[in-house]
């Protein structure tokens, strides 16, 4: 071959071929929104199996196994207790600071774990995504169910600490309200995780930002101080209380520590934000359905 780049000859002819396409569907195409939800329901066994199997394998490498699910927030709590409670005295004016701190840290840990897992689910599940055709939302959904399952021992541990550590609280019927609160929190985690999953599938750099965002969020959620002490401006305080994670923590604290029924506005605010996040997250994730298999 000489220097000239050989040009491939054109085909001899082009044969038009009329094809009945009615029974065909486009491969890998994104179904309509409600059809997608239906398809996801058909894959429920896959989602649950995935979640269960991974809960068991998550801590298999560690000698203490699943105990780390509990030890991790306990050590976290201890650190914050020493720094903020003992050294910086943010505990001033807070009744039962240990309980206050434990509720904040354990619940925030649940959200940060679930949001991170949901956000990374498409990246970590790339092999499965490329190998099989299934609705991709199964992955963030499975990751969140997994986190919800492992939150059960976490929350039981939290309640145990509250009962055992002085000033020990007594168990009341109000404690049952923890269940709907944590459930709404799980829904919120799922919605945020789905939004981030699509973003991270596209721009991987965001995974580096995620820990910083979560940390800032934790500092803003009154985990180891109370809003009343540091924020005097009432409008700012109102804005801060829109934070759904603060709402969850506040609701659980009221039920478990202070024996008061949380106000309806906390519940409605939490429910609206959680459901809103779910709908937006689901819709946003579904929009990108065809892109997740790409390298």
């Amino acid at each position: 071959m000489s220097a000239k780049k050989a040009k491939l000859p054109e085909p001899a002819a082009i044969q038009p071929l009329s094809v009945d396409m009615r029974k065909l569907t486009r491969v890998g195409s994104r179904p309509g929104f409600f059809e997608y939800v239906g398809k996801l329901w058909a894959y429920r066994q896959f989602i649950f199996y995935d979640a269960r199997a991974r809960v068991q394998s998550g801590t298999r490498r560690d000698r203490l196994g699943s105990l780390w699910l509990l030890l991790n927030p306990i050590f976290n709590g201890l650190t914050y207790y020493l720094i903020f409670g003992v050294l910086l005295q943010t505990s001033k004016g807070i009744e039962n600071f240990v309980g206050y701190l434990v509720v904040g840290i354990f619940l925030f840990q649940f959200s940060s774990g679930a949001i991170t897992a949901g956000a990374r689910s498409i990246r970590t599940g790339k092999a499965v995504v490329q190998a099989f055709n299934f609705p991709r939302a199964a992955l963030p959904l499975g990751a969140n169910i997994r986190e919800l399952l492992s939150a059960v021992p976490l929350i039981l541990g939290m309640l145990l600490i509250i009962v055992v550590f002085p000033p020990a609280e007594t168990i009341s019927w109000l404690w049952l309200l923890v269940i709907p609160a944590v459930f709404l929190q799980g829904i919120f985690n799922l919605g945020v995780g789905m939004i981030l999953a699509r973003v991270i599938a596209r721009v991987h750099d965001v995974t580096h930002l995620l820990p910083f965002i979560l940390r800032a969020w934790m500092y803003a959620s009154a985990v180891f101080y109370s809003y009343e002490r540091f924020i005097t401006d009432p409008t700012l305080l109102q804005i801060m209380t829109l934070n759904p994670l603060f709402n969850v923590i506040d609701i659980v604290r009221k039920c478990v520590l202070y024996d008061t029924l949380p106000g309806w506005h906390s519940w409605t605010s939490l429910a609206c934000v959680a459901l809103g996040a779910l709908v937006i997250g689901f819709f946003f994730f579904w929009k990108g359905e065809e892109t997740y298999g790409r390298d």
Partner: protein
Amino acid sequence: MAAIDETFFLDGPPCVVIDRVKMTYKVESSDERSGAARGLKGRLRKALGRPSRVTVTALKELSLVVERGESVGIIGRNGSGKSTMMKLISGQTAPTEGGVYASSTPILLGVNAALVPELSGDQNVVLGCLAMGMSMEQIDEQFDSIVELSGLESAIYLPMKSYSSGMASRLRFAIAAAVNPEILLVDEALNTGDAQFSSRSKARMDELRAQAGCVFIVSHSLETIRDMCTRVIWLDKGELIMDGSPEETTDRYRDFSAHLSKGNNISATRIKDDARANLVATQVLERTSGRRMQGR
């Protein structure tokens, strides 16, 4: 090039229609002269220490209609777009332009995809089967035969990350072969594992092929292609070169490769150009009404 005025009418729905599909990738290039490093975007990438990117065309515009009962072999040199085409048909990646239409979900029998390394082999079997849309009852029924086909025996209960690559690919094949797909895609699946496994997998492949509505096979072995296919297409650098009977196409391709390996590039190119010049390409016309029109 002449357009044929007369339109062919295909009776009944086909299995797979590839309609004006085109695939380009943006990949990183370490070639400083590629020109991609120029311009603001390119300079910015360079400053961030990222390699410049170039666009690579993996598949040029291509249309193909495959009917029920056809076994299509895809041959070509490395980088000719064979695997890209399989990925597009399986829906693993979406084409840059055009669309692939199929009568049911195509199943790709590959051997390269990893499953979940932390989980044990048996958990991966269940997970993979569920991901293909099987129910728990179907999996219970098939579980033993999947394990048997994989030949893993008691190693099935160990985590996947402890498997050798051969073991993992055998399991992957066994899982994918558990369903009877209407549209089956095979990508070099025959050349994995030891002799014992390859005879077992070949038997299962034959079974699947017999039941499938249509089959696509990518292989470097021309014998395999010749034995198994009813139609062979030859791709080269993302272009369709030939589309014909297995004997004719493989003979021509073998001729081409023989000239190339002797370093005889000019005559090889002539063979290729000649084949291409005789190609009758397809143009897909979508028919939405069921009635047969005049003509034919």
